[in-house]
């Protein structure tokens, strides 16, 4: 059962460290778990795993298509592969393998696509995926997750081990602000209402939850009370929650580190189009263009992925002069 509380203090951990530490425990307890990487072991922080479990850690080399395919093959004989590469290579590059070798024939692997969206940072446009959610969301039988923080990421790693299926999760390797307390329990397919308010609703994923919460605080000073929701399961989407939360709100906002096309905003737009509530929808997301090199602050600012953009959008929709 879902039961979470918010973090009381900030002790953010690098998510790659969480990945490595959690898999270390998981591998210790489950001999079927294997870890695969595509020549990014030093980047994903899994070196210790490779040293501790050399037989069950496989560096596939720079061949993502084969990595996804071979991992699916391993899963058909009872292995539980955790596979990592950067988000664009995990999805864009190996899409047909993910689709057919993975989901179509019902394999059983977990794919960690790291550094989505602006998190590609100085790797720039070639390594930036602003479309991984759009691609993965359209694949039947694929669970698509975007953890908000270290606690949720760890929970996902633990709680997908024994649940047969295909999973894609995306998050940065670096640290993000803590949202949840250590003891929090989640449920795949259910959104988490982080804070409740009566006027507007902000649906977010990943590190954008912090921006959503910040926006909620700023809006309070304008007399606007906001509900903020973590929709960490992008697919299957918690449609009931979207409908319940949206009912009676004056503005609905979505915020994500992804293209405006095909991600969380699109998913929620689809629900609201089929269940009209009469309120405007503001999608805070990367517009229809490519990534580029830059620092997080520069890129977030350039793409308009911050609390300011959310606040301005809400105020404009409510005809409130800034």
């Amino acid at each position, binding site marked *: 059962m879902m039961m979470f509380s918010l973090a009381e203090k900030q002790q953010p951990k690098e998510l790659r460290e969480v990945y490595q530490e959690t898999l270390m425990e998981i591998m210790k307890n489950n001999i079927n778990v*294997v870890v695969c990487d595509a020549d990014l072991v030093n980047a994903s922080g899994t070196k210790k795993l490779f040293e501790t479990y050399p*037989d*069950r850690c*496989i560096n*596939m*080399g720079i*061949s993502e*298509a*084969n990595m*996804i*395919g*071979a*991992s*699916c*093959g*391993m*899963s*058909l*004989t*009872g*292995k539980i592969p955790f596979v990592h590469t950067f988000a664009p290579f995990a999805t864009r590059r190996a899409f*047909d*393998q993910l689709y*057919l*070798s993975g989901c*179509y*024939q*019902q394999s059983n692997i977990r794919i960690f696509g790291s550094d989505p969206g602006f998190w590609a940072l100085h790797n720039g446009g070639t390594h930036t995926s602003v479309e991984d959610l759009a691609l993965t969301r359209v694949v039947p039988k694929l669970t698509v997750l975007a953890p908000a923080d270290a606690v949720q990421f760890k929970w996902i790693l633990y709680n997908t081990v024994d649940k047969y299926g295909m999973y894609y999760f995306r998050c940065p390797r670096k640290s993000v602000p803590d949202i949840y307390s250590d003891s929090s329990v989640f449920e795949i397919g259910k959104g988490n209402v982080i804070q409740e308010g009566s006027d507007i609703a902000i649906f977010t994923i990943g590190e954008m939850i912090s921006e959503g919460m910040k926006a909620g605080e700023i809006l309070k000073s304008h007399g606007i009370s906001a509900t903020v929701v973590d929709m960490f399961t992008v697919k299957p989407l918690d449609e009931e929650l979207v409908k319940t939360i949206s009912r009676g709100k004056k503005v609905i906002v979505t915020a994500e580190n992804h293209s405006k096309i095909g991600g969380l905003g699109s998913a929620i737009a689809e629900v609201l189009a089929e269940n009209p509530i009469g309120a405007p929808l503001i999608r805070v997301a990367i517009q229809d263009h490519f990534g580029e090199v830059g620092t997080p602050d520069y890129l977030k600012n350039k793409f308009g992925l911050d609390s300011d953009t959310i606040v301005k959008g809400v105020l404009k929709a409510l005809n409130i002069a800034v």
Partner: protein
Amino acid sequence: MSDLKKLSTKIRLEVCKMLKHRGFGHLGGSLSIIETLSVLYGDVMKINPQNPNWEERDWFILSKGHAGPALYATLAVKGYFPLEMLNTLNNNDTRIPSHPDRLKTPGVDVTTGSLGQGISLAVGIAKSFQISQKPNRVYTIVGDGECNEGQVWEAFQFAAHHKLSNLIIFIDENHKQLDGPTKDIINSFDMKEKVEAFGFAVKRISGNDELAIKNAVLEMFEVKDKACCIILDTIKGQGIKYYEMLSDNHHIRFSGESEFQLDLAIEKLKEELEREGR
């Protein structure tokens, strides 16, 4: 006629009958691998048709998935499912779609069809058995046209690097792909040299000779520290002269002469089996 030759004839007959019933299908590439399937399912592979998911079985991956009819005919002849089911090929709601689907057909280990993907699945399965130190062997057939796909060579590198000697990769070198001769589309040059250069133990044999195929497999069983590849020199449309000579024999829609020849082939194959007392 040896038992394996007889099995090949039975499988070839069933392929012809099922495509005759359907009216169209991937005949050429199905016929070129019949002798290999006959050796695998009739002799060297550890299988249990009554329990297709038997844990101790050997695995087979038809990476060139469009040759599905050849695999279905083999499985039916071996008793995985009734022969009558072959007549449902590509029917609406069929359990035997043109390309193999492990969720639909008893005995199909892996879903294939998008070329290049089966070989990666095969190396993954072999790697898994290697990790668990299990004795199961893995067999896969890759098409020579399929080797156009870059993923095939990614998987070959992986197999060689990990010394997957529990895996035998057959390359069905039937010298043709959908649009024509491979040498005119994308020349594979000397496939044996290429695969050898990747670090494989390689043997090139005549792919219509059951004994040669069996001996090559037994020889590969002795290889302990290398991935193994058997290149099958075959003919697209193998075993039926008319289709061997037919230039466009990848996917045939039977009518007129091509249908007449199919009927003829079916009769001839039936007679051969009758002579042998089935």
